[in-house]
């Protein structure tokens, strides 16, 4: 490769990678959390995890839950009822508030509401991942641009590293100079997980692009067709009391399980939708009172369902989802290290100049602030959100507003802090270490000690503690170095 081509590729890689990296880091981080959306919901609402042994779903419970669903529908709320599953052992009578799913949790055996308030929950991260909480077309546009940038960055990165791809596959030099160490980490993660990143990135971009196309040219509905919302507002729904248990039995026969399936109104009927985790490709098959069996369909009916299956991995087992989550975090490491490398090389280029103008210096400070707010601010805001769901909200504010406001407020503050202070990273690391290390204590203090899902709580606490310890070790490193 000629030095000229190399410098051009490097320029592209850096200047596409850094701005896109801000969004890609958010997407990777929230995507990793979205793998465990129901579990996060349960952690934030510890009362819904019940006591061991977990009670199974009963017919009377389902009837009672169905009654409550009907009430909601008749009151004009477009709600749906999700059935209990091993991942989330309660009924969820949810409605969509424009960003996230909200609603009470019902006991699987009685169908009565469980104590606890609404929390942003796991779907908050799903929403953040799918459209960054931005208004409808803009979220998709940003993600498509960032996804395309990811593919471009991966390709330029691969081209730059092509000659040393195989010889340096497992190269990491912990004793090397700082920039070399970060580069090693960046290349190590990048080259090893290149195929996975490419597939995840491509499938995510395709999904969002499809959404954009749909928004640009909405499907034409024949006259007389009523959308779900129009239908529900037309007349009160009349559902016989035994419809839900009957449909659940039919679903059990059809699919073998209805755990994680959901009841939703379609037209004047109530349908039972198949669980999302049934097939590799997402098939929203539905049973109604009049159609209690459905003919077998091809495994992957559309390209969209195939891409969805590839990207969401809802069908996958727990271990695979864990590894998927870890791969997403590896993506965070790659993007984070890339941003740090960008920052260092910009700093180095300034160091060679004899005079540095104020504009250049403030631009550099801006890059550093963006990096800090992305790499530290987002995990900090996430941990703060976790904490706020367990702590009482200020009485003047609705809890949900307070929790979401805290998340975005803290994230914005992190950016602001990094803009005005040179030592922002250290302080934010310290705060992150405190929150991470204290999560276990908070968890034990704010939930009943005996729970039906001890592993869930320990896993979340352990992850938070890992973050805390990592931050603490980074903080203590200079002190340790000085002492040796």
């Amino acid at each position, binding site marked *: 490769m000629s030095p000229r081509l190399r410098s051009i590729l490097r320029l592209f890689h850096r200047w596409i990678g850094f701005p896109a990296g801000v969004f890609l880091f958010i997407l990777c981080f929230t995507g990793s959390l979205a793998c465990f959306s129901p579990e996060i919901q349960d952690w934030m609402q510890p009362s819904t995890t019940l006591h061991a042994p977990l009670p199974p779903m009963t017919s009377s419970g389902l009837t009672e839950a169905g009654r409550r669903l009907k009430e909601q529908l008749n009151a004009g709320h477009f709600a749906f009822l999700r059935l209990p599953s091993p991942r989330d052992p309660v009924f969820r009578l949810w409605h969509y508030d424009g960003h996230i799913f909200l609603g009470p949790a019902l006991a699987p055996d009685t169908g009565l509401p469980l104590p606890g308030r609404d929390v942003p929950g796991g779907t908050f991260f799903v929403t953040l991942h799918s459209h960054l909480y931005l208004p409808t077309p803009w979220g998709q546009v940003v993600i498509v641009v960032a996804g395309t940038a990811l593919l471009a960055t991966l390709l330029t990165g691969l081209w730059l590293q092509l000659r*040393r791809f195989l*010889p340096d596959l497992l190269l990491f030099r*912990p004793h090397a100079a700082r920039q*070399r160490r970060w580069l090693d980490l960046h290349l190590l993660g990048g080259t090893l997980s290149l195929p996975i990143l490419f597939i995840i990135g491509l499938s995510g971009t395709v999904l969002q692009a499809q959404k954009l196309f749909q928004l640009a040219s909405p499907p034409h509905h024949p006259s007389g067709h009523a959308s779900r919302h129009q239908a529900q507002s037309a007349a009160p729904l009349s559902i016989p009391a035994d419809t839900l248990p009957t449909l659940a039995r039919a679903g059990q026969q059809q699919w073998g399980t209805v755990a994680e399936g959901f009841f939703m109104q379609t037209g004047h009927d109530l349908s039972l939708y198949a669980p999302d985790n049934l097939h590799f490709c997402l098939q929203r098959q539905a049973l109604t009172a009049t159609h209690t069996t459905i003919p077998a369909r091809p495994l992957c009916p559309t390209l969209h369902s195939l891409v969805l299956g590839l990207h969401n*991995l809802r069908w996958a087992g727990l271990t695979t989802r864990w590894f998927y989550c870890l791969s997403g975090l590896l993506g965070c490491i790659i993007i984070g290290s890339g941003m740090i490398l960008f920052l260092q090389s910009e700093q180095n280029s300034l160091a060679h100049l004899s005079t540095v103008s104020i504009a250049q210096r403030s631009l550099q400070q801006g890059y550093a602030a963006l990096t800090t707010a992305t790499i530290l601010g987002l995990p900090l805001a996430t941990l703060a959100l976790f904490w706020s769901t367990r702590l009482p909200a200020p009485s003047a504010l609705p809890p949900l507003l307070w929790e979401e406001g805290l998340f975005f407020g803290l994230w914005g503050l992190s950016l602001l802090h990094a803009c005005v202070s040179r030592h922002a990273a250290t302080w934010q690391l310290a705060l992150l270490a405190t929150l991470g290390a204290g999560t276990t204590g908070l968890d034990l203090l704010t939930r009943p000690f005996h729970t039906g899902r001890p592993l869930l709580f320990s896993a979340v606490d352990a992850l938070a503690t890992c973050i805390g310890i990592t931050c603490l070790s980074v903080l203590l490193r200079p002190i340790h170095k000085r002492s040796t």
Partner: protein
Amino acid sequence: MILSLILMSLWTIIWLLYLNQLPAHRRRNPCRLPPANALQKYLRLLLLPCSLTTAYLLNGLDGLFLWAFTAPLTGFLLALILPYPQHPNRPHRRELAKRSQSPQIPAMQIRLSSLLTSAFIVSAAFLGLSPAARADRPWQDAHVQAQITAEHELSLPLATSLSSLPDGSPFALGVTGKLYRLDPVDGHLTTLMDELPPITALTATAQGLWAVTQAPKPALLNIAPDTGVILNHIGFGSALAVGSHISALQVTDNKAFLVDDGAPAFVVIDLQSGHAERLLEGAPSLSSHAPLIRHGQPVTTAQGQSRTGGNVHFLLLDHSKNWLFYQTPTGPLYRIGTTILTDSSLGPAERIEAMTNWRRTPSLGGMAITRDDTLYMVDIDHGDLLAFGADRLPWRLLHDDRLYDAQAISLLKGRTGAQEKLAILTEPTAPTNGVNPASTTNHQHLLEITLP
């Protein structure tokens, strides 16, 4: 869960086998498997489909994804967790400490035993704590000093280049680029061959003499030491830049390594294919960053300004032909692996990183290396002969005022017995700067030194 553990183990084996087949300077494998062979290669290739099939049979589609996810994560964890072996190009302080304990460095003998590996790491870490190993030790007088046993006046003006064959016969270059055989008994110079083009740098090896000529056309010549016949002639291609001047060269079995002090860079020539490549152009370690000091005074130019030592001037090859030592006249001494220069998969950044500062030195008038990898240097700042061996102990072997004017040094085999001798070329003492005007002559001298 069980499948993921199986897959991670299989991937660990695959990655370790992959690491094992890398060249030693790239290997990050703490468990030295038997040297890479065809069996390992086939095993590695076989394990990939085997693990994929196992994953699919045990867990279906889930297994396939698990297979794909465990690969990068296992590799990533391995790369972070595996102890990073002492990079051969970087004398890490632990290694230095270890070296100061034992004169011979055993190659990193790593067995498939984590116990040994841990023991090595623990002991190396323990040794790394000793502060003495980190610093350059000061030069100390040797218990037994070297002696100047003879001095000959040379009849012809010589360039600052001396080299001797493994049997000890020295060769010298005239200021006009003529090649002379030097008789160490009386300092008599014999022209080797009149028809040779003017030579700018010379080295003598077991394969004969290797010389660089820059006019009429730059080329590397292999010359028979007894007859002066040109045995081989390799062009430089485009490996020279404007202002290039090759100051020194070293030759291994199939590569020639040259240093360019006109436009600082390394030039590597493949002796088989004749391909010449210019590397590490303008690397900082190839240029002097300090004034050249002779007899305690900065050497000045005609305009009265301090002279720097110029660019890289000395280049030596160790006995194993794995390491090149190079330096400018003012030091410090650097070391780089020959494989670093010949491995085409390495980039400039890695090569620069592999240029290892080996030791600070004073201003030098010559440098030579023996079969046991001891470096002999003539310190023109203090008029000393210095020795620095593989044990990294710095010895001052001799002080003599004549050494202030040293220009070149070469090994000589002892004429009597096994004692090694050195030949040092000294320039005529300048009349204005002369310490002893009586000894001022216009001729260079050859000093013969017997090593202790």
